[in-house]
């Protein structure tokens, strides 16, 4: 498979990442709307029912589980959107034929930290869930932490690659 150009792995990956980013943004916006509307939803329904002359009894109940879940989803979506943006920037440099630059090492490091924050948030919310007796699952996914380690290794590889590229460029 070609490394650059149409039909290459990089271009397919870029398309997939663009689609994922759009989906994540939609989910992020939907979640934001839900956060704003859910607390006032019973009031709104009561108002509408009142205008119609009917009566309404709400069984919508937002407990700690839901709040924790929503905040965790916010963090997760934020981390994913941030990471995808950085990966798209890296793919852009690959498209221009200059992937081994210091900036890409920094981008990979940032992705690593972002993913670490995401996983850390999962753990933290799990602990909070235990403390407040909420029903949020706390799980340590080894594969996620391995992926984070892989991203940091990639960052180190890119840093070294950038150094070698610079040396090669300055070899006469």
């Amino acid at each position, binding site marked *: 498979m070609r490394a650059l150009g149409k039909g290459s792995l990089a271009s397919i990956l870029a398309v997939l990442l663009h689609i994922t980013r759009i989906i994540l943004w939609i989910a992020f916006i939907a979640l934001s709307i839900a956060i704003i509307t859910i607390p006032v939803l019973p009031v709104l329904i009561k108002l509408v029912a009142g205008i119609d002359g009917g009566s309404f009894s709400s069984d919508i109940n937002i407990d700690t589980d839901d709040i924790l879940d929503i905040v965790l989803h916010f963090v997760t979506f934020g981390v994913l959107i941030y990471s995808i943006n950085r990966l798209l920037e890296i793919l852009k440099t690959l498209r221009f034929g200059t992937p081994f630059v210091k900036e890409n090492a920094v981008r990979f490091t940032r992705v690593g930290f972002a993913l670490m924050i995401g996983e850390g948030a999962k753990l933290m919310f799990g602990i909070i869930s235990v403390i407040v007796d909420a029903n949020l699952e706390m799980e340590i996914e080894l594969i996620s932490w391995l992926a984070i380690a892989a991203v940091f290794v990639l960052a180190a590889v890119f840093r070294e690659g950038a150094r070698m590229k*610079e*040396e090669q460029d*300055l*070899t*006469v």
Partner: protein
Amino acid sequence: MSISVKLDRVLLDHGMSLTELSERVGVTIANLSILKTGKAKAIRFSTLEAICRELNCQPGDILFFDDEELAVEAAE
């Protein structure tokens, strides 16, 4: 870098321009400029050989080892 390049002096002695040297040794002007301005990190033997051949000089006429510069680098 404690190695300095004195290409401009040798070029002056031979009355040759950088463009002319570039054409003769088959190295781009951009790369020769990197060498001339001391920005180069390494020089290939093939490039050094071509330069010495065209300028009729020894590698030691172009490259110098600066002891003081090394001391400054070590201090940093």
